[in-house]
């Protein structure tokens, strides 16, 4: 056998499409067995939780509750997406929750107290996030203080900062309609469908282009069936979501009609697309993973490791700001508890449940979204079951521990199957 065919086994006359699909599935299964579980636990968790809550509390599966879930989970999902960047380089940001509170407070002051228009409010919040990230990142990277300590200190300091900005804990109401629409608004029905068509078309074009390029270069490629199946699955999933969200979900449709895809779903989708692109398709994203995998190797390869690490903190805090905006929008107000309480732990939990590793080098934006869904479903379902806050904290903690356990074990398994 020549080297060429060994490097590219799929270039040989294959055993037919069915065999190719089987080989693809087998390859995926081998990856899972070697510890690359990826999104599998989160997806399985979502399905299991939906079945469980759906049976015990039928209202859980109502359309109204589906829309509700997105609203409840959005802020945590945003913060979790940012945390993925810090987790990938093997650091942690414990201050992300209160950073979102600080940014939301700044926005509230700009909007309500100063009466300025919404672009300035949102801009100020995100700019605050960027500055926070720069400061945290510089302290960790240039001074070499462990991120755990820096961000723990910031956790306390930001809690105080929120109190100071809100003048010892007053509640600032947000009146701006645009900002309130971030978490409260819905698209028109046709807008939802149009968005679906655009998204699916874009996904299909990207996937097919990639497939065509790889076939053209006779590189190892997935069978076309698998590519088409993925596009089809996305179409069905998004189509069902849009269809359900376009149904009337108001308790009293005569008085007020409530339909359409929530705006926050579009925002989450857009952020997901942007950050996935950054992580997987840009040099910066590649370097993030390299720094998390082996910083010394990255240095020797000429990567500007310090800059990459600081940028990760900046992205994390900026996404915390987005999370803060979403939370403030949902509550239509900012108070000293915005971004506090369990927000941070839920966000870290979301990222880890989705498959980001606390040991660095591993994690995707998709993980943050899937994990965020798990966390939101648990809280929502247990709330519907009427469980006390104490039980809910306990269960969420247990799930986080379970996810971290899976992370640690899959790492061990990877080692076992890896070297030597």
């Amino acid at each position, binding site marked *: 056998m020549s*080297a*060429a065919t*060994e*490097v*590219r*086994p799929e270039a040989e006359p294959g055993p037919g499409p069915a065999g190719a699909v089987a080989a693809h599935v087998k390859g995926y299964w081998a990856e899972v067995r*070697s510890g*690359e579980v990826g999104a599998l636990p989160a997806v399985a968790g979502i399905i299991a939780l939906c079945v469980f809550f759906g049976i015990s509390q039928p209202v859980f599966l109502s359309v109204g509750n589906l829309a509700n879930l997105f609203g409840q989970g959005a802020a945590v999902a945003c913060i979790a997406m940012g945390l993925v960047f810090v987790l990938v380089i093997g650091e942690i940001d414990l201050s992300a929750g209160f950073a979102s509170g600080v940014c939301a407070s700044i926005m509230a002051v700009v909007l309500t107290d100063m009466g300025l228009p919404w672009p300035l409010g949102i801009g100020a919040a995100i700019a605050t996030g960027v500055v926070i990230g720069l400061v945290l990142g510089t302290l960790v990277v240039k001074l070499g203080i462990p991120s755990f300590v820096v961000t723990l200190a910031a956790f306390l300091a930001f809690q105080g900062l929120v109190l100071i900005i809100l003048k010892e804990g007053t509640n600032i109401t947000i009146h701006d309609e645009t900002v309130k629409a971030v978490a409260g608004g819905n698209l028109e029905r046709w807008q939802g469908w149009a968005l679906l068509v655009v998204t699916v078309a874009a996904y299909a074009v990207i996937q097919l282009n*990639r497939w065509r*390029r*790889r076939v053209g*270069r006779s*590189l*190892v490629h997935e069978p076309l069936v698998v590519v088409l199946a993925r596009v089809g699955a996305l179409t069905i999933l998004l189509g069902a979501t849009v269809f359900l969200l376009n149904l009337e979900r108001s308790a009293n449709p005569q008085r007020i009609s409530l339909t359409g895809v929530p705006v926050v779903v579009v925002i989450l989708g857009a952020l997901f697309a942007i950050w996935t692109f950054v992580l997987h*398709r*840009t*040099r910066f994203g*590649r*370097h993030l*993973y*390299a720094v*998390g*995998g*082996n910083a*010394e*190797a*990255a240095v*020797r*390869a*000429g*990567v500007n490791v310090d800059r990459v690490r600081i940028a990760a903190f900046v992205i994390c805090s900026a996404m915390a700001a987005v999370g803060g905006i979403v939370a403030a929008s949902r509550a239509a107000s900012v108070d000293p508890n915005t971004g506090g309480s369990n927000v941070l732990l839920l966000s870290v939990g979301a990222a880890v449940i989705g498959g980001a590793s606390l040991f660095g*080098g*591993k994690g995707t934006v998709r993980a943050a979204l899937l994990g965020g869904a798990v966390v939101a479903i648990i809280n929502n379902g247990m709330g519907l079951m009427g469980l006390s806050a104490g039980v809910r904290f306990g269960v969420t903690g247990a799930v986080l521990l379970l996810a971290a356990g899976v992370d640690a074990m899959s790492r061990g398994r*990877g*080692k076992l*199957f*890896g*070297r*030597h």
Partner: protein
Amino acid sequence: MLLELTGLSKRFGPVEVLSDVDLAIDAGEVCALVGDNGAGKSTLVKCVAGIHNIDGGAIVVDGEERSISGPRDAAALGIEVVYQDLALCDNLDVVENLFLGRERRRGLVLDDDEMEQLAAETLKSLAVRTIRNLRQPVASLSGGQRQTVAIAKAVLWNSRLVILDEPTAALGVAQTRQVLELIRRLADQGLAVLYISHNLNDVFAVADRIAALYLGRMAAVVDAADATQQQVVELITSGRSGTLGLTDQNGVRP
């Protein structure tokens, strides 16, 4: 000569780690660098790689004296070092590791397909048959495969001198043989190879010439074909062997 070291000296404070070392390596040959622990092998490598500044003597590349003050300078001269601890990212796949820090792009976007194709071609040119899936994470590779990736990474950049620091130290018998074959192929393709090893069997299996360091001084550089293992062992342990080796200022053997 591709690389010539003349009168190279390096001291750390009062300790002279390298004194007056001469060594020349030409394209297409494997030169083994042997010596006991503390003989100065690693220091010599780091001087050539630009990690240490030299205190005396000269580094001459293609007949021109060069000052190498960092790994980038060395890379610009076509000198690549494969360190013992490999410097691979376990979580990245083979292609990603090979191109780390020098990724190909189309505009802003990484051109992964182009990189994968180039990686496949490089491995093919090295007749590497042990790595089947270029998209598997390096963590899942065996020690020999990892070493192969590290070496391929060094030759991917039109390098002309590859320095290998104990590439077979942690490998089993079969994998050692694979790596030695790969080293031989590098030289056959016209690269100069400086191969550092403790294992004289491996050294004799692959090297054209053997340079023995003894306490920071070059005891002798011998042709592998003319030397015996016994002689090399004596050069390593006492700095001399028969008519070979070091003499003191009065011409007396130490």
